[in-house]
């Protein structure tokens, strides 16, 4: 019950502070822009294809799915990136900010356990972020379907993985918020996020260049923060195999998907960080 009260309070705060309104408006702008981009891409592609057919007399090329898949990947990458940033911004001060402001002084003495406060906040953010990701992925998929006449495979699986990316960042940000001030936490989490993204890029380069060391650097960064590796797995599952082999190693995706063990590691990583947040907050003087 107390967990639900705090979760509700967290969601309510996002609505009251007009965070949701801002996010919805900007997301609609993104979807509109994305739809326009997809439309222009398809028009250009079809006209190029028509010119090529007229010149060579050959039938339609099978590469439309590859290009449309790249467009979907671009859309999903944007969703993943924006959600990552949003997760960090939303949760960066959720505990530290309330300690600094003193608002927890009236909450903690109530008949509520400290673990319920952390869990409630986590659930509140998790619900909002998951709903947002699901809606945004639907937006990208619907655009691909209606404008691009293309349907990406394993969309539910991919969506769940993007949600997992967000949960990883949320868990890390929550832990940081119980340990550090809002500003310090923001800096640390953003730096780690940057390390994870860069590590993922280094790993892709390593795969392309056959560099074992570069791949190991990527693996190391995904142990430190597995958000990027889960994104790469998401990108892998939502592309047809033809597109993966055609595009090869690239900044947005991967040709070598992380294993199931990496997924299990990410889930345990989230759980451990949430437990860590509870333990730190449980012992902390306010």
């Amino acid at each position: 019950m107390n967990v639900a009260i705090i979760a509700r309070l967290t969601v309510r705060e996002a609505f009251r502070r007009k965070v949701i309104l801002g996010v919805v408006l900007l997301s609609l702008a993104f979807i509109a822009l994305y739809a326009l981009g997809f439309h222009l891409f398809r028009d250009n592609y079809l006209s190029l294809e028509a010119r090529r057919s007229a010149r060579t007399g050959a039938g339609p090329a099978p590469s439309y799915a590859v290009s449309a898949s790249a467009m979907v990947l671009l859309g999903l990458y944007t969703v993943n990136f924006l959600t990552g940033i949003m997760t960090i911004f939303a949760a960066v001060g959720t505990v530290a900010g309330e300690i600094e402001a003193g608002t927890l002084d009236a909450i903690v003495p109530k008949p509520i356990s400290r673990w319920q406060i952390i869990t409630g906040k986590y659930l509140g953010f998790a619900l909002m972020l998951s709903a947002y990701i699901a809606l945004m992925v639907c937006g990208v998929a619907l655009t691909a379907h209606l404008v691009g006449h293309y349907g990406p495979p394993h969309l539910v699986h991919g969506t769940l993985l993007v949600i997992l990316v967000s949960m990883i960042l949320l868990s890390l940000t929550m832990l940081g918020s119980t340990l550090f001030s809002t500003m310090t936490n923001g800096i640390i989490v953003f730096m780690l996020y940057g390390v994870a993204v860069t590590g993922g890029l280094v790993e892709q380069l390593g795969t392309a260049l056959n560099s074992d060391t570069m791949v190991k650097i990527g693996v190391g960064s995904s142990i430190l923060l597995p958000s990027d590796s889960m994104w790469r797995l998401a990108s892998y599952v939502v592309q047809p195999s033809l597109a993966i082999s055609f595009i090869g190693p690239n900044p947005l995706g991967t040709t070598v998907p992380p294993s199931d063990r990496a997924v299990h590691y990410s889930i345990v990583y989230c759980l451990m960080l949430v437990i860590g947040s509870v333990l730190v907050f449980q012992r902390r003087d306010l």
Partner: protein
Amino acid sequence: MSESVSQSPAATTAAPSNEPAIELRGLRKVFRDQVAVDNLTLSVDYGEVFGFLGPNGAGKTTSIKMLMGLVYPTSGQARLLGRKLGDRVARRQIGYLPELFRFHEWLTGSEFLDLHGRLYGMSSAERRKRIPDVLALVDLTAYAHKKIGTYSKGMQQRIGLAQALINSPRLVFLDEPTSALDPLGRRDVRAILARLRGEGVTVFLNSHLLGEVELSSDRVAIIDHGRVAATGRVDDLLSRDLRVEFRLSSLPVDLLPELGKLVQVEQVVEGQRTVVMARVAGEAAIAAAVDLLARHRVSVYGVTPERRSLEDVFVDVVAPSREAGR
């Protein structure tokens, strides 16, 4: 502020006779190498309004924060309402107004009280009934649906007080409850304290406004450097070490040593009336001195105790250690 509010359940709850409402034994808090509270031992009985005083940095807020579960004691024991610290059953019956009253500014007053009512486990019917009551008590009915962010500081303190009383507590901790209030607001808080006392609610009051504490409290403790430096009933503290002026017809020389056994004679001024300035340990000594003088047929024309305030007592208790620290 309105007085037409429903009665607190505390009024109908029998107070356990054998245990105090608040009991602290050797409570200690050390932040790194700084001792904030050192061996704090005191008890507060059910139904008392207890003033908790001390200079800045004496450890008052840290002590209250320990009792509220915001700060963990380094050592020592504390029991509230007969239960150990953090006990959920006890917490349900405790109200708390923090010193730095910062609340969720994006909630309206009514929503804020509803949130805290929920956290206390109150049913929706209880909350519906109680919220208008406490809003009326702190005179914020007209602002129930305005966001707390739009409230003045005084209004925020009053909504904080309403939050501390939403659960009809048996024990209330008020940390500087009038710091942001104007004189009218302070008078209203005094009325609320009197009302709580009438209902048998135990109040633990931390305030720098010694006049407020003197008017509202049954007993006080003055803490300094994290320890209790003085404690007792307000009347006892005020009459302890009194200066009294006796106006007499005369004072026979052989009576002076005997009078000196009862009071500490500081000065004797002969004149049309003999004026004796003396320091006494308490009111009982004044009565004994008057008895002695009457037995020896000395006419007593006047006994004027010097009116001391709690501030005088406070300064007497705290000043020596401050002087020593310089």
